[in-house]
């Protein structure tokens, strides 16, 4: 895709990591900044609650990306319900659309934020689709 800067990578990200609560007892790394530095886009998941239709819309988008050569991962947070990812519901929606579950990286909220940030950056940098898939789509 000449003249196009897209990074072909994106992450499903809990609302809590995009909009961290100000009173968080244990700070988490600045995930948006780490994603940007690693050329990832963001698919924001809603906060906890009933968001059935919105999750279906997000699953439609993940399916479209996954079927066309984009690398999709999920970043969750240990210790919060469904890791902030609505994981069970999202998994069911993705299975209905014939999409394999994206690789999942969990941040540890009680660990050092700097070290967790480095661990996340390594995970992001290391992940991509098989070379054949990249060659098929990313032209």
């Amino acid at each position, binding site marked *: 895709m000449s003249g196009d800067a897209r*990074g*072909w*990578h*994106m992450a499903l990200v809990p609302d809590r990591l995009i909009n961290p609560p100000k009173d968080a007892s244990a700070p988490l790394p600045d995930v*948006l900044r780490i994603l940007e530095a690693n050329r*990832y886009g963001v698919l924001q998941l809603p906060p906890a609650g009933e968001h059935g239709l*919105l999750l279906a*819309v997000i699953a439609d988008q993940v399916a479209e*990306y996954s079927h066309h050569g984009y690398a999709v991962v999920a970043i969750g947070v240990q210790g919060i319900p469904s890791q902030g990812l609505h994981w069970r519901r999202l998994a069911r929606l993705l299975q209905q659309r014939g999409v394999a579950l994206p690789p999942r990286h969990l941040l540890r909220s009680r660990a050092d934020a700097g070290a967790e940030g480095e661990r996340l950056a390594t995970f992001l940098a290391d992940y991509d689709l098989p070379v054949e898939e990249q060659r098929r789509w990313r032209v």
Partner: protein
Amino acid sequence: MEHNPPRKVALIASCLLNQNAKVCQGANYPGVVSPVVEALRSRGYLLQQLPCPELAFAGVRRWWAVYEQYDTPAYRAHCQRLAQAIAPLIEQYLRQGDDLILIGLDGSPSTGVRFTSSQPEWGGRPNRPEDDWKIVPRRGIWIEELEAELARRGLPPIPATGWALDMGRFDEAGARRDLEQFLDDRQSNTSPRVDPVVR
């Protein structure tokens, strides 16, 4: 009884957090559009990404198009479904008394706020860069349908502007000044409010 202070929340076009959503040959950044995110976060805004209507409708390998090509009953119905998916979250923010703004993508046939792209004669195979289109002062179709859904719910209009990415020639410095002006002007204005509830 304790009232939490209102939060500042920016509803932002999907592609401002994910340039992979852009039409073929339309991505100007790898992923996150950092000038927009920086401008919003430095002013204390929470971010709420909107769904991308074109991606889910025409796919990630779609051609570029103008307003008139997307102005079909099927596409509007699709946008209405997306609006119904995100509106409850927006309504929740508004009923909590939060201060909302909307940042779209000026020049986009779907997500344009101040401007959209127009060429009633367009059709068939695109021929870039020879193709010519106009930028006209009008909402894109997705924004029209989103605002209609919010109005149906009795919610007030949300102050909105667009990041001028799809206006033909992209001027990042100009787009940044424009956005920052909008945000700074908002500081002294009152926000749209609906019957707030106690959090």
